[in-house]
């Protein structure tokens, strides 16, 4: 890299750093709420299996309900009826990855967890033991508030606008 290019790159880094400081200042209460959480990168939280959903999503979730803890966007939707990101995938933690075969297609190589472009919905089954901390809802068990925030941190980092909305929809405004 030439000297001129290096100087431009340094200037850009300084601007980015200033921008990040301003974002933390603007969303101070949100940042304080999440600052101490260790992010959970969902594909690394266990053994991940991805299956295209071919049947009815509600029927699939009902079938998974006895053995699974729902996480990430699915958990937020179950809690609040809202999702923050693209996609209508189902995210669930399980001790044994065995989805109901009539409702999903054959396992495929993992697709991006946060799709940029519209695509068919997937079931992401994260096999891990122990299961993450969870709470019971009328539609099944979902991950705890802290775990859900950790999942969002691992997926979107410091998007405080989205994180504040997640907190709002969780009923836990910062």
């Amino acid at each position, binding site marked *: 890299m030439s000297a001129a290019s290096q100087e431009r790159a340094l200037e850009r880094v300084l601007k980015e750093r200033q921008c990040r400081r301003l974002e933390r200042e603007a969303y101070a209460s949100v940042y304080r709420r999440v600052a101490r959480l*260790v992010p959970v990168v969902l594909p690394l939280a266990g053994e991940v299996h991805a299956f295209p959903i071919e049947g009815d999503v509600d029927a699939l979730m009902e079938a998974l309900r006895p053995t699974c803890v729902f996480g990430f966007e699915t958990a937020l939707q179950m809690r609040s009826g809202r999702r923050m990101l693209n996609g209508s995938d189902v995210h669930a933690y399980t001790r044994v990855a065995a989805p109901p075969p009539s409702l999903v297609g054959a396992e495929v190589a993992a697709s991006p967890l946060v799709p940029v472009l519209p695509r068919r919905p997937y079931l992401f089954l994260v096999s891990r033991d122990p299961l993450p901390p969870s709470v019971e809802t009328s539609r099944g068990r979902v991950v705890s508030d802290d775990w859900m925030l950790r999942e969002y941190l691992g997926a979107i980092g410091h998007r405080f606008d989205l994180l504040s909305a997640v907190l709002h929809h969780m009923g836990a405004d910062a």
Partner: protein
Amino acid sequence: MLERAQLDDLLGRLEGTCLGAHLVLVGSAAMYLSPTSIPPMTGDADVAVAVGTLANHLSGFLDDLKHQGFEQIEDTATFAHASGPTFDLLALDEIGRGDHVVRLGGMGLLAFEDLSRLVARPRMVREVGGVRVLAPSALVLSKLRTWRVAKGMRDKVQALAMIGDMAGDEAFLAELRMLVEELSQEDWEDVFADAQVAFTGLETDEARDYAAFAELIGRGFSILQSLRESP
């Protein structure tokens, strides 16, 4: 990828230059000479030298590099050897000027203020097998503090993985705590926040190579939190 044997060969050649005794191995390649099992997964080495020393011996040093088989890549401070390995020359400059580019002999050398400050501290440069190398605690802090347009998240996850991997080394943690406590509150918050954001890099090309170390990286972040009061 720079292999350990290639690094040893490169360092041996640099030792044969007139500035051999003044060069300090910094950056990811220094992980090879640190007591960690985390692989550096880097394509080149970063070697730092004081600006004044370089200025005084520039033409002799460039001649020696040529003699050792290195070719300077035009307009840059990057030197490539015919056998493959390359290194970037970084500048150690006076404190107080911030990160900047030093222009010397047609080259633009990056001068990172934190790196200059760390190298100037006592015991933060160690001699390992005859090579002057940044101490592990200083290497970790330099990676947590330095931002690059590309590979910034990679630096952070490497640093967190090293902390997690060296969690049982009390001397290392004590040194790191001392370095962290010396940061201004604003700088500490930058370090802390940047480290948290870096986890997202494990899902991207930038740091996916380190996904296998996710547990150590998480442990490293928790330890970093414990070193100083956080937001």
